[in-house]
């Protein structure tokens, strides 16, 4: 396997890592926001 073919796989991996981190953070923030809103409503 050539250097650039390995780099292509590494680039895809990094894409997945960043996308996962972004999605995880958004889920965390939105969950906290929903909880806070429900507590305020009570």
């Amino acid at each position, binding site marked *: 396997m050539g250097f650039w073919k390995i780099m292509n796989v590494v680039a895809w991996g*990094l894409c997945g890592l960043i996308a996962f981190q*972004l999605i995880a953070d958004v889920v965390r923030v939105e969950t906290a926001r929903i909880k806070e809103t429900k507590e305020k409503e009570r």
Partner: protein
Amino acid sequence: MEKTDLTHVQEKSKASALHKTLGPLHIWALGVGVVLVGQFMGWNLGIVKGGSLGALIACWVIGILYICLVMVTTEMGSVIPESGGQYAMAKYLLGPLAAFNVGLMLVFEYVMLEAADALVVGEILKTLSPDVHALPYVLLSLLALTWLNYRGTHATLSLNIVLTGIAFFTICVLLFSTRFYSAETSLLRIKEMTNGLPYGWMGILGAFQFGCWFYLGIEGTVLAAEECRSTSRALPVGAVVGLVTLIVGATATWFVCSGLLPAGKLAGSVYPLFDAAMATHMPLVIHLLFIGTVLSCLASANGCIADASRAWYAMARDTLIPDIFAVLHPKYNTPYRAILFLLPIAIAFGFTGLLDQVVTFSILSALLVYLLTGYMMIKFRKMYPMGSIQRGYTAPLHPLPTMLLLVLTTATLAGMYFGYWINIASGCAFYFLASVWFVIHRSRYLDVSSYMATGASMLPRPRGY
């Protein structure tokens, strides 16, 4: 409005305000970083329309347009220190419908530019090896820059300072590698390589729109007005130094490329500066220009993400679009929903592969904003004459800059009509349909009290209102 209501809205506004962390250097980086990519590709299409000399004249005439634009926007931006730039100005000076259109135009100007940057990054990397797949690198660039923007403006624009500085440095290296200062050893052969004005004055008019590539987006500096430590200092200094940087860079770029490449080859080049570097046959210069081209694309996309998301956030905060986008991240204090919402749109347009169409729509959106900006300046000086309000910066010789701005923008649109009239028609149809949607549907949800609250607390009642 009741006093208590106003206080409540002001407190709410203060609580959701963006962090004030930016200085003149960040404003310079935001302005130049978005625009510098225009020196590395695209501007040379003006040679097809107007010849070598036509492209140079277009570069300088459009430089005058942007000097006027920066003067006008900086004066208004230093008085209205609110996120959104020309959008915020339209909000207070023209009303909700015009503000909605200006906001939408700004968002599309920057999102399209971001898509074009992504396209170019993919194309450049493909030249490294036939094994390189453009897709993962394009996605990685956009995701990494989005991640940086998501985590904070200060880190994002600090990165832009580095990227922009390196990209500008590579242009300087290319310039000095040609030994232009020595008549005997200079590599530049301007007389032999250029083709003058093959299509006369009409060619210059046609080249105007590509002259915009050198400067398109510099007006984005006012979008970060709300995040400046001292708006009245950072905005004028950052914007004016940025514009001077671009004019010097644009002239050097034309000089080097026109002296190293024949006009026919330069007109059809995808990467004119990189091709010019190849013509020097110096490996170090060639490698540096490759890096410079990639970094300028990344810096441009980085600035575009920051600008587009702030305009989208500002529109949502004012209830012109659904307010789900008007939320700041609890930890990073960035408009994270707007940043993430615009990412797939940029990716989608980037993968149409239609670089000239994407960029023409970006330029058209920008030109329409410039027309409205000129009109806003006339209205602004009538509503707030000199002495009636404290200005961080005053545009000299008013109304000359405004008139020049309006005349040159109209001339550029006329030149664009010759080759891209379908783009003008479809762009205008899009904004017309969006306006119809706003008037019929969205205007019902407009919260007028919060819409004008910040301005009501900052600005005195204008004359005649």
